[in-house]
């Protein structure tokens, strides 16, 4: 047993030593880590593949995010890897603290994203990627009470991202649009589907940002949400954010998010803070 562990760890070590954790992409083009673990903005996944690895290289991030709104606190730990600026794998753990009830709802999200076509900067066709997010809610008590159909579900999405050099006032402009096909209620924290039905819906999400200089990005996001549970209302999400990329190993995102009604508690808004550490 010990021998097998030892040989497994040496294989892993060899693997990690032989690949180059590289920095070939331009600063800030690794994006931040979105709430669900995929490279993106704060609440919207982008077509960008995580990390700074380009052709033949690997990149990735650890990130820690906390969102504090009136009656909830969501803590997110994520890890993602980008392979050859083509394929991205991600894992994200959500821990939602429901303050009025003093209980937690936890969720795991496994993501995969593949760049299909185009290029973020050097091509007229924007970078377009397709992705899936498999979500498993581990505390289905509240989702069940509210009428959710399932404790797990898969989101499918298509994203387009484009950076325009000197796009506005001489500043570089980054825009992203995502189409998502989902059965999730409140991104899965309140389960999936409703009353015996998956009820998949198509929603649109968008982020737009402007680089004040290569290190500072300000912008806004909008995420359309389904509103399928009869018992409680679900609102579209929006935020305004500021991202700081001092170098390729660490970055920060601070946002003010307006998440609307969550599980019957209205007007949930507050600060979003994320720290991302590059590999």
């Amino acid at each position, binding site marked *: 047993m010990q021998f097998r562990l030892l040989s497994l760890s040496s294989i892993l070590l060899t693997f990690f030593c032989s690949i180059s954790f590289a920095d070939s992409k*331009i600063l800030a083009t690794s994006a931040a880590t979105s709430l669900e673990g995929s490279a993106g903005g704060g609440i919207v996944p982008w077509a960008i593949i995580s990390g700074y690895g380009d052709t033949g290289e690997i990149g990735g991030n650890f990130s820690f995010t906390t969102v504090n709104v009136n009656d909830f606190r969501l803590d997110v730990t994520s890890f993602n890897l980008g392979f050859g600026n083509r394929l991205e794998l991600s894992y994200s753990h959500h821990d939602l603290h429901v303050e009025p009830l003093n209980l937690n709802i936890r969720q795991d999200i496994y993501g995969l994203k593949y760049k299909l076509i185009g290029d973020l900067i050097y091509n007229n066709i924007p970078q377009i990627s397709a992705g899936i997010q498999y979500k498993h809610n581990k505390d289905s008590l509240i989702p069940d009470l509210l009428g959710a159909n399932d404790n797990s579900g898969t989101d499918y999405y298509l994203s387009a991202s484009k950076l325009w050099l000197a796009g506005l006032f001489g500043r570089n402009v980054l825009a992203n649009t995502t189409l998502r096909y989902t059965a999730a209620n409140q991104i899965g924290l309140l389960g999936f589907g409703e009353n015996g039905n998956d009820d998949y819906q198509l929603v649109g999400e968008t982020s737009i940002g402007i680089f004040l200089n290569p290190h500072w990005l300000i912008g806004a996001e909008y995420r359309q949400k389904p509103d399928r549970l009869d018992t409680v209302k679900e609102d579209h999400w929006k935020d305004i954010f500021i991202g700081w990329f001092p170098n390729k190993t660490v970055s920060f995102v601070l946002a*003010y998010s307006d998440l609307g009604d969550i599980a019957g508690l209205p007007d949930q808004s507050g600060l979003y803070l994320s720290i991302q550490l590059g590999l």
Partner: protein
Amino acid sequence: MRETILFCLLFAISSCAHLNNQAPLYNQLGEMEGITKIVDSLLHEISTDAKVLPLFSNTNIKRFRSKLSEQICDISGGPCEYSGDTMEETHRNLNITRNQFNSLVEDLIRAMEKNSISVPAQNELLKRLAKMYPDIKH
């Protein structure tokens, strides 16, 4: 709270507009003297960039320095006409990868930062150079 942040954002954006110098790019880069300084800083950055340095092993640096300055003068609207070889010709046998191209872009950004070129002027030059990407990349 929301209004305050929105106001700060709008203020930040409007101050960008204010900084957007309307002078031609050639002047914003400091004319021929400034452009030559940027190219010299770029050569210095390249000399410490292990990723792109091998591409210059057969390059006549003196000629490269003068032709690149002339080319930047030309595309920034200055009184020069680029007289060197086409981008396709000069890069044909170099098999330049995306990684190397990106690395060179970052060298150029650092070179412009060192010479205190404004962000809009930096972005505008990068935009004009980025158009050559299909001819340069392998």
